[in-house]
């Protein structure tokens, strides 16, 4: 116990020192996971399927943002209004790309099977095929090497929280994801469209009898999830850079977040994302960076075994 206790004590000291810096980074990552997780949760809500190809929605958003930044950011790092404009443009482009790719996935890999009432295994396999196809095609068209994104803003600390600097990048993530999430939450809770989504999630057959256009609702669900996933890809790429395989690990973690919060549950996706992001970030103190993915995955297995309905429970079709 002595050596191990010593190890823990030493690391707890580091944790005390680094806590707020790690916490801020974890929150930012958590918001990104939450944005991707929303895509899983929405699709799961209406189709009861895990969209295995969602990672490629994320990847396409990253690339769309990358190309916009590459075209518009010049030699010097922009600041002020041009930074805001560039980021907004990047968000629009990546959201559009994400929505487009999600629609394509729905049309080709899902709707064709739905017409035929295929068994569930078939959906999983065709979605895996779609994911595999898309990321390898992206690798062919955009090269197989990772590239860093030209920075559209100067990443200086905006303010400090308990001595830990909160940089511009984190502020952007916070503002964008909270805005998009609140908007989504209100749309699903209050609009006619949101009522349609909830109705399909509760009982698709009855919803169709009540005049809800199921195909359209499912398509819109993919578009909404795809937009958030695409924007998350752009924000992620701003820091890490983009590469054709970039979707795999964040999507696996976002799925973990969705399950952790209760799959099918919008707020759960965000909460799950935050918990996972923060936890993972704090774990850096205790385990080597290479094993962080193993930790996240261990959480997934644990949640699935112990409480597969997640923290908030599977509240499909509720307004929140």
């Amino acid at each position, binding site marked *: 116990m002595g050596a191990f206790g010593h190890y823990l004590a030493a690391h707890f000291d580091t944790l005390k020192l680094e806590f707020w810096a790690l916490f801020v980074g974890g929150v930012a990552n958590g918001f990104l996971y939450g944005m991707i997780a929303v895509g899983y949760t929405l699709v799961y809500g*209406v*189709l*009861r*399927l*895990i969209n*295995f190809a969602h990672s490629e929605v994320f990847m396409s958003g990253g690339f769309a943002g990358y190309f916009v930044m590459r075209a518009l950011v010049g030699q010097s790092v922009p600041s002020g209004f041009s930074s805001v404009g560039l980021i907004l443009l990047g968000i629009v482009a990546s959201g559009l790309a994400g929505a487009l790719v999600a629609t394509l996935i729905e049309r*080709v*890999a899902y709707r*064709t*099977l739905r017409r*035929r*009432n*295929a*068994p*569930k*295994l*078939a*959906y*999983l*396999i*065709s979605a*895996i*095929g*779609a*994911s*595999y*196809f*898309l990321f*390898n*095609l992206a*690798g*062919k*068209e*955009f*090269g*197989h*090497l990772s*590239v860093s994104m030209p920075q559209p803003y100067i990443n200086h600390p905006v303010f400090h929280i308990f001595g830990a600097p909160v940089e511009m990048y984190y502020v952007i993530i916070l503002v964008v994801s909270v805005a998009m999430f609140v908007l989504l939450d209100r749309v699903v809770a209050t609009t006619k469209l949101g009522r349609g989504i909830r109705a*399909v999630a509760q*009982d*698709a*057959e*009855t919803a*169709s009898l009540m005049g809800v256009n*199921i195909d359209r609702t499912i398509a819109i669900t993919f578009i909404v999830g795809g937009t958030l996933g695409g924007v998350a890809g752009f924000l992620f790429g701003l820091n890490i850079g983009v590469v054709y395989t970039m979707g*795999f690990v964040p999507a*696996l973690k976002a*799925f973990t977040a969705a*399950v952790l919060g209760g799959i099918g549950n919008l707020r759960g996706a965000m909460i799950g994302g935050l918990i996972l992001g923060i936890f993972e970030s704090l774990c850096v103190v205790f385990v*080597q960076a*290479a*094993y962080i*993915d*193993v930790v996240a*995955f261990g959480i*997934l*297995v644990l949640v*699935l*075994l112990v409480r*597969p309905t997640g923290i908030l429970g599977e509240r499909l079709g509720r307004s929140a």
Partner: protein
Amino acid sequence: MRAFLERRSLRRLLITLGVVATVELMTGPPGSNQAPTSGFSGSFGESASFFGLFRTQRWVTFFAVALVLWGLTNFWMANGARVRQRTNLVVSRPRELSQRGPVRWGFALVLLVVALLLPHIETAAFWESAMVTYIAIYILLAIGLNVVVGFAGLLDLGYVAFYAIGAYTTAWVTGALPTPALFHHPLNPFWAIPIAIVIVMIAGVILGAPTLRLRGDYLAIVTLGFGEIVTIFANNLYGITGGSLGTKPIPHPSIHLGPLKYVWGLTPVPYYYLTLAFVVLFLVVFSLLERSRIGRAWTAIREDEVAAESVGINPLKFKVMAFAIGAASAGFAGVVTASADTYIFPSSFTLQFSINILVLVILGGMGSIAGVVLGAIIIQTIQAYLTHSPPAGYQAQDLYIYLGALLITMMIFRPAGLLPSRRRKREIALSEVSHEGHLDEVLTGDDT
């Protein structure tokens, strides 16, 4: 003419054009992040020769192909039923014959003889080694995964993990890892075969026991993560696996049993026969299993888990068994790869690999042993051919694009595979018919 302008026909034209444009992108020249549009513009604008007949820009050729395809689909939509009826008349007799036992055994025997003579027929150095590294090993892996996906109906996306464990076990017992060997003396890789198979089966039980309680889609994602974790560990545990630098050289296997002495060397043909022997062994064992009590239990669980449980089948027990048994052939494949390649690296055990094996199973037909073998032979021969003499503009990674597209295509047009297992085909058909008109059941169906 009016029929041509019908909306449906136009829709088909658009779909055909979309598909052809996609194929054009898939087969076109690569782009790069510096010139992201070069791949797209090259795919359509580059001039290419059409089987040496004439040279023109790619889009012209492909547009012509699209029009022909569109004409064919229109013809099929109008006359498909009649054509199918006639072909059925012609092939019904051979098909019925092919289902008889003696015919099947005869066919298998002929194939075996061909397989035995193959190294003497094809003696090119590349193909001699490709027969082992590209085809025979993949047949082993495919029939193993077929036990999990085909027989038990469990989607395993981390099958590569077992292959990796098999390979690393070989390195371990032969003393090729930084960590001390399993026994005091480093063993010959030949003795690694039983040890690797046992260890891999234990790994199957350890992974399966907790995760196989999960629903089908959760299981898929968990196995996906498991495959990834094995790679992470292999990459980072420098003291145990040698990390990303790989292992020390692994010796070739040899047998010294009284009068029987044989040493495998660098030439691939002896490895081919060793692998072939085990392919036949696993084929026999797996087909016997399929017909046994265990195989029937798998079918029952796959078709209706609740019903199976109610007649006294313990689903978890049989699922774990499927995992462990399916892993066994991957373990053996790992031994052969490790000793034939001399070194192993974590980078050989990727997600790409798991998906590659899955494609072999899906193409051939889930649950159909003959189909899976056929699928493996077709795809792996193509893959070997593409590696051997790549067409202009082809990169090694392009294959994965084709495999992904193939998965979607199979699920849309022929979910039961090229040589469907009769039972599996009926299951899919039944599920499609029984759900007809009940949208809700499909959307919220519990047929995991």
